[in-house]
């Protein structure tokens, strides 16, 4: 541990300290508990019968052969499900004309994507359940497949929801100023059509759930590796018609989430229901192949973007039209990520005239949901690509265009009139730092030397902002989201003086239990190792409006912890004040004591104060409530905006089309850093996902709606060979509306990388005819870039 910046004694491990994570020893020794380690006696295992067709009527399901197999307890079909379960709620209903596409936990009457659940088999073992699943006979009547945006929007397109006039789930336009006039009067305009491929969070641990529905108490205990236990609890209650208090959701260690585990799914409903029907605990662990068709997809969009500008490179107007390729059913976040892409395109720039639109179309693909970064990577790809295009048109360095259009600190808070109010940040400073770091690391010189030697090396830069600390409840309400944006926290000191933090946030590897302990340590000025963080149990832990996602755990949940700790501290001082007969204002906590300011060592130990508050009440004074516990609810007043800049160095091999990422600079302003080592780790991981998104990861469908990439040999995650060492640079501009100044860092790494890599490839190929318009860039495409003349 190192000291903190707040003048606390070394060893406290407060804000700004590098503290070893509490969770590490169990994880490195193999003793941590993940969802597949949860199994009580008598547990039945689920295997799913998943549709081999992308679009089909279910004419009948014959499960008799499966049920005849010894050890098979139940086979649940959609026809039976609807007798017990309501439709899955959609949390995001924020598009004015958003349609309803009732989605159940499994297919009912019709399948709309390959891999959709048609039947669920519960048996004594997973292997037996899989055997039985193969014996379930399903009679399908295939229907025409809607493969693409063009298919979906064709006038005679087959409709996924027959009651709708087309396949459009929702469409909306947002504007500010007069974009038409600005384009009409512009000295320069440029436009591009861009596309971003289909990708997903792909945590290394697939999803899983273990449910026990106690017949006689009518209570459900559900273990699940979810980022949003409170939301899952409410959804289970709503869908299965039980009171919220009748559902206890518990979360073990989570093997990565990346947003895909923030959505809620049908599988957990099926576990609960089959437990009710069989009287046994029921467990489901998604296998890897299933994860590709059953865990939310993300990213895939078509983006038409254009800017109008002066000859000096001042952008006067922006148009952005995004179509999101939704799946065959609607996920729990509706078309939220697509919407956020559209309204986030202006990024860190001052653009007075905006016309931004979003459309979500249904296709026969896996549902579209959350993945780290949500809308921001595509928005940044769109904006930064069009800046590169404008720079070429004007013959100016693209960084000059950025500088001319950045919102400056003195203009903040700056509302772009559509969605964002940029609260704080030094965007040009971040760009300067990025260029400076690239230079210091020798990359500009390296590029020149490599080029002189005939190699194709390029450098690309992209600036970004991302809305973080989601989200103020009033913003959520304005968007029609039936969830709050606040967080509740409870902090207790026990009778020995040790402290426990109770939070609704979850730990999924991002170090949140350690980070929250640091905030508590900072407030109480006690060593962080005296603090335990309890999370992942809806019966024991407080409520959170939105769970863990949207880079909000520190910026919202952390503030609640800090404020609850503040309340606890007031109680501690009140008790000590009575014991010492000293005014509260004259007391401080230091060196494990509540002591009189200016008289170090004169006081009571925290252990003694705590003992008195619980067990020697004669010591605490008349009218003082026994126990020591603080509670707080924090609801931010506004979103905050993390921001920064990525600089990526690539080498292109014209013979193979291969792209090697050689260097990667990530400048990030996440506001106040709580634990710089954890912040770096979050950036590294996000940047690696940006590399995957730009160069490797692609969920490919054929025209029949069959997903072709369902193994790690086809869907390529970056390995240590594709990822370079990272060079991170930190800027700390405190968030003005977050007590403590945190903005959030969970997603930032994913955001600017794809745009920067696209620019780096352009630069490496160095041909005016070449412009990256689609990600991920395949070797074939790069080969064509390099060999266009040949």
């Amino acid at each position, binding site marked *: 541990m190192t000291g903190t910046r707040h003048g606390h004694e070394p060893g406290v491990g407060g804000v700004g300290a590098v503290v*070893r*994570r509490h*969770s*590490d*020893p169990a*994880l*490195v*020794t*193999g*003793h*941590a*508990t*993940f969802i*597949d*380690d949860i199994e009580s006696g008598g547990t039945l295992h689920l295997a799913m019968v998943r549709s081999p067709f992308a679009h089909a009527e279910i004419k009948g399901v014959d499960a008799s052969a499966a049920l005849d*197999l*010894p*050890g098979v307890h139940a086979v649940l079909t959609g026809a039976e499900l609807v007798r017990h379960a309501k439709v899955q709620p959609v949390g995001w209903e924020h598009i004015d004309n958003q349609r309803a596409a009732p989605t159940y936990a499994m297919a009912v009457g019709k399948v709309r994507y390959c891999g959709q659940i048609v039947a669920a088999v519960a048996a004594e*073992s997973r*292997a*037996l359940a899989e*055997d039985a699943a193969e014996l379930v006979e399903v009679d399908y009547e295939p229907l025409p497949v809607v493969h693409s945006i063009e298919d979906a929007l064709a006038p005679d397109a087959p409709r996924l929801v027959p009651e709708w006039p087309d396949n459009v789930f929702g469409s909306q336009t947002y504007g500010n100023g007069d974009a038409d006039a600005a384009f009409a009067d512009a000295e320069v305009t440029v436009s591009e059509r861009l596309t971003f491929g289909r990708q997903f969070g*792909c*945590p*290394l*641990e*697939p999803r899983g759930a273990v449910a026990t529905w106690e017949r006689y108490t009518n209570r459900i205990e559900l273990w699940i590796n979810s980022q949003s236990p409170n939301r899952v609890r409410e959804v289970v209650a709503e869908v299965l018609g039980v009171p919220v208090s009748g559902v206890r959701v518990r979360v073990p*260690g*989570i*093997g*990565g*989430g*990346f947003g895909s585990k923030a959505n809620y799914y049908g599988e957990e409903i099926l576990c609960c229901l089959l437990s009710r029907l069989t009287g046994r605990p029921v467990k489901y662990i998604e*296998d*890897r192949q299933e994860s590709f068709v059953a865990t939310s997809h993300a990213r895939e969009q078509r983006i038409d973007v254009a800017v109008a500008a002066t000859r000096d490179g001042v952008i006067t107007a922006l148009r952005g039209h995004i179509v999101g390729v939704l799946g065959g059913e609607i996920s729990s976040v509706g078309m939220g990520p697509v919407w956020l892409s559209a309204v986030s395109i202006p990024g860190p720039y001052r653009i007075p005239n905006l016309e931004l639109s979003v459309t979500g179309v249904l296709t026969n693909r896996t549902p579209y949901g959350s993945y780290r970064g949500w809308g921001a990577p595509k928005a940044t790809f769109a904006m930064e690509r069009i800046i590169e295009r404008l720079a070429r048109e004007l013959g100016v360095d693209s960084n000059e265009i950025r500088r001319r259009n950045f919102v400056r600190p003195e203009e903040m808070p700056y509302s772009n009139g559509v969605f964002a109010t940029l609260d704080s940040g030094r965007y040009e400073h971040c760009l300067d730092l990025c260029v400076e770091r690239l230079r210091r690391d020798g990359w500009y010189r390296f590029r020149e030397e490599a080029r002189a030697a005939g190699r194709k090396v390029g450098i690309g830069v992209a600036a970004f902002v991302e809305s973080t600390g989601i989200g103020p409840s009033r913003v959520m309400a304005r968007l029609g989201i039936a969830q709050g944006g606040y967080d509740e926290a409870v902090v207790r000191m026990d009778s020995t003086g040790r402290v426990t933090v109770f939070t609704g946030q979850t730990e*999924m*590897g*991002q*170090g949140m239990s350690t980070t929250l302990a640091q905030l508590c340590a900072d407030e109480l000025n006690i060593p962080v190792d005296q603090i335990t963080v309890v999370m992942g149990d809806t019966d024991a832990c407080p409520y959170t409006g939105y769970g863990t996602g949207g880079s909000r755990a520190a910026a919202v949940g952390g503030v609640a912890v800090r404020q609850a700790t503040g309340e606890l501290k007031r109680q501690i001082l009140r008790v000590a004040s009575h014991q010492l007969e000293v005014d509260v204002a004259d007391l401080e906590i230091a060196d494990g004591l509540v002591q009189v300011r200016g008289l170090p060592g004169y006081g009571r130990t925290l252990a003694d104060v705590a003992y008195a508050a619980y067990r020697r009440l004669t010591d605490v004074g008349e009218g003082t409530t026994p126990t020591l516990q603080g509670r707080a609810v924090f609801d931010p007043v506004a979103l905050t905006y993390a921001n920064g800049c990525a600089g990526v160095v690539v080498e292109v091999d014209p013979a193979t089309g291969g792209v090697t990422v050689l260097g990667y600079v990530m400048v990030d302003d996440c506001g106040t850093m709580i634990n710089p*080592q*954890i912040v*770096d*780790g979050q950036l*590294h*991981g*996000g*940047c*690696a996902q940006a590399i995957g998104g730009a160069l490797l990861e692609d969920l490919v469908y054929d025209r029949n709606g069959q997903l072709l990439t369902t*193994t*790690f*040999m086809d869907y390529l*995650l*970056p*390995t*240590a*060979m594709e*990822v370079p*060492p*990272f060079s991170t640079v930190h800027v700390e501009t405190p968030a003005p509306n977050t007590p403590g100044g945190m903005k959030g860092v969970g997603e930032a*790494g994913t955001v600017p990388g794809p745009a920067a890599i696209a620019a780096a490839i352009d630069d490496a190929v160095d041909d005016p005819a070449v412009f990256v318009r689609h990600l991920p860039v395949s070797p074939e495409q790069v080969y064509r870039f390099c060999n266009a003349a040949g």
Partner: protein
Amino acid sequence: MSGETAITVSATVNGRRQTFTCEARETLADALRRRCQVRGVHLGCEHGVCGACTIRFDGVTARSCLMFAPQADGAEIVTVEGLADGDELHPLQEAFSRHHALQCGFCTPGFLMVAQELLAEGGPLTEEVVREAISGNICRCTGYHNIVEAILAVADARSGEAEK
């Protein structure tokens, strides 16, 4: 199909002789997790790509999801549970924590087993060598940067000791 003949397997797992019965089709990973209670063997893909289930099998690393349990009869197996010496972490485990080389920790057991084998080989380690050695394991959280640093730090400490 189910109801196959049960096969009895006897193996040494982390220094302890274990005898268990399993089905012929059962993977070694499943048997280790469910019959030998070594839950540090994690399943990330079950098709031999991610490396989370990596164990040491008769002295060399192997992917336990690609082996059948009966193959382990008579074998000497070490899993991540076998690295630490009681409460004393293995230097790699210590370094992974110190360098923040793990986040969710699900892939970590596999990386530790591979890194341990790499260090045992004893050759000089460079960043390139380490990256190549761990390239058969997937980590979705860390971006590998700190994993490479942690392994190099242990290698450096060892060579430092050797020079003393």
